[in-house]
């Protein structure tokens, strides 16, 4: 038994970390955060060139043929850097096609998605917190889909949208489809932009395999991984700030109230990385446990991320409350991670149900 990462996985994280430090330092991050559409072509191209566009796409379709754990490890590092852009939705779209597409659909789409020629996303949730595949209402008939999908990551920019439909199916809709309306949502997390997608008898293709639940579970794991990365970053920001900010003639880190809060913060997050590792590993290798592990990881880590974001603001004092401070960027990523695909309370109830409590 080995509860750890392989050398390759550690190298993967280090490589991406190096890329983020170089290509997305704070000024760049802020520029994209403030920008019109939360998208930077150079940054995205750089990611795609590294092979991040098709991490879980099989090699035969031009991808890296890796597993969800590898993808989640990358997401952790991107979360640390609050890297803006369409990676999350794109990755889930590639996964949906890889798991559920017909050979012909894979042949047509996966190479383009892996190379970055085309951008993918997923349209899962609907209004009133309808994140569960069983709650979706979009209807398919005679190769056309009709429905309203809320909160679609980078829906405006995507070439291919994987849409969740009633009965828990998935269909693919292209950007050129008639009957497709995409409107931007004024989202809180400006590093992951959202759109509302309205489909009115839009031509679509169904994915033959029923993989909506799997795609949702993968999404939960990735949000948990992002939350771990983001929360770890917040703790180090709070620690650095507390060491340098002086009041009453000493660094505020010397006040035990501050110091103990920082100790509690690291005690919350550091032990929890294994939750997302295990959930990803279960997704890849232990299917019976995958669904529950994903729900537990997402509920725990996203809640933790949110609380640590609140703590980090307080440790920073007034500056932490400003738009100017970078803390707000991670704060809003925490809001996204906590809410997207369902809030912690919802997933905790699923954890209970899935164990027959």
């Amino acid at each position: 038994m080995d509860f750890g990462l392989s050398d390759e996985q550690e190298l993967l994280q280090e490589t991406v970390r190096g890329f983020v430090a170089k290509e997305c330092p704070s000024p760049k991050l802020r520029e994209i955060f403030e920008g019109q559409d939360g998208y930077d072509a150079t940054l995205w191209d750089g990611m795609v060139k590294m092979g991040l566009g098709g991490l879980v796409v099989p090699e035969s379709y031009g991808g890296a043929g890796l597993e969800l754990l590898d993808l989640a490890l990358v997401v952790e590092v991107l979360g640390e850097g609050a890297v803006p852009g369409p990676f999350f939705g794109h990755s889930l779209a590639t996964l949906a096609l890889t798991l559920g597409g017909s050979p012909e659909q894979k042949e047509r789409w996966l190479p383009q998605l892996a190379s970055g020629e085309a951008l993918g996303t997923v349209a899962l949730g609907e209004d009133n917190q309808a994140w569960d595949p069983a709650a979706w209402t979009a209807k398919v008939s005679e190769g056309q889909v009709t429905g309203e999908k809320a909160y679609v990551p980078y829906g405006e920019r995507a070439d291919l949208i994987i849409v969740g439909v009633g009965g828990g199916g998935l269909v693919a809709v292209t950007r050129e489809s008639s009957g497709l309306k995409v409107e931007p949502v004024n989202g809180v997390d400006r590093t992951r932009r959202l759109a509302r997608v309205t489909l009115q008898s839009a031509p679509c293709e169904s994915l033959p395999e029923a993989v909506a639940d799997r795609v949702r579970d993968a999404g939960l794991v990735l949000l948990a991984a992002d939350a771990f990365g983001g929360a770890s970053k917040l703790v180090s920001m709070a620690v650095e700030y507390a060491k340098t900010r002086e009041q009453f003639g000493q660094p505020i880190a010397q006040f035990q109230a501050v110091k103990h809060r920082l100790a509690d913060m690291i005690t919350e997050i550091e032990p929890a990385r294994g939750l997302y590792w295990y959930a990803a590993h279960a997704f890849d290798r232990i299917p019976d446990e995958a669904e529950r592990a994903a729900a537990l990881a997402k509920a725990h880590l996203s809640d933790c991320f949110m609380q640590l974001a609140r703590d980090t603001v307080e440790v920073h004092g007034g500056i932490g409350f400003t738009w100017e401070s970078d803390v707000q960027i991670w704060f809003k990523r925490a809001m996204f991670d906590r809410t997207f695909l369902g809030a912690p309370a919802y997933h905790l109830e699923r954890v209970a149900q899935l164990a027959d409590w």
Partner: protein
Amino acid sequence: MDLSYSEEYEEFRREVQAFLKGYWPLQGDEAKLSHREQATLFRERAIAQGYAARAIPKRYGGSEREADVLKARIIGEEFGKAHAPGDIRSIGASMLVPTLLEHGQEWQKERFIAPTIRGEMVWCQGYSEPGAGSDLASLQTKAELDGDEWVINGHKVWTTGANIADYMFCLCRTEPEADKHGGISYLLIDMKSEGVQVSLLRQMTGTADFCEVFLNSVRIPAENIIGKRGEGWNVSRSTLKHERNMIGSAEASRATFRSLLKFAKGVQLNGRPALEDPVIRQRFAQIEGYVTAHLYSGYRQLTLAARGQEPGLAAMLNKLTSTNIGHMLAKLAFDLVGDQALESPSGDEVMNLKPRGGQAWVSQYMWSLGIAIAGGTANIQRNVIAERGLGLPRDRAVQRSN
């Protein structure tokens, strides 16, 4: 990540199962022995087989097996299922033995380790004093060398098990001229020595497990020292690390969690099964998040250790994480026991890791606090995490007192 058991391990599990089937419970005349004698007898056989005392060299009575986390887990699981007595989790076996292995002289290891892991020699830890708790290094118990004997005078407190102990490992001030930390030595005191007086202290649980120990001109051989004169502080750090590991064990947190879940399944709350109450369900799932994180962090630390890497910060969090979970479980349990909270707790001697029944949970409700205080309070853990883990500056008060 590879969490599967390979064929080698499945085979090992079958061996352990076969051994247990043959040797536990004891049969015939052996089954008539006292509980403690049976356990001792069985434990000897388990050691001979390599299923106990695995980290301890053969020459000190152990079975000297290569460290293997997975085998240890399999043994734990199978022994648990069979209710067979495994490694002793006494103060001596868990804290003193590793300290001896690290710092002891050859004769000390030969003399003390074997009887301790067999459960024949019982130890207590004489650190705390009335004036020295969190600020342990301010301890005042004095030891002076008189010929080839130490003469010890002082007063220890909260000494768990001093009433039943054969020996005490004790911190004493031996170099009055040296600075606070440099003047301490780590001595081994025979509790039958003249001048040792033990009186029981009763805890809030109603039972009495810890004691006050008065040491009046107690004489012990000069060689009963671990490490050199004035090095006791460093030696004691190693004991404390093992104490925190013992308290911080994630498997124990999981066992307690499972026990509470089982308890909840038989409890009615507001006229329906407690587990149907949405708030109770949420709390269980929430605590499971912490328990599981703690467990995986433990697996990760073991994996790092097996690879020869340092777990670093993660290891410093174990005690606080574990006692935080203890508090959460205690509060949830308290909401499940209902009116039984009006009755006295069961008389568990030390914290029961798998409480059964309402009164045992009332006991855990109290013990969870004792555990959070023993071995360095939560605040002291936070200081360590902040200063050594996160590199934050030390407290002014603590700096001044050094």
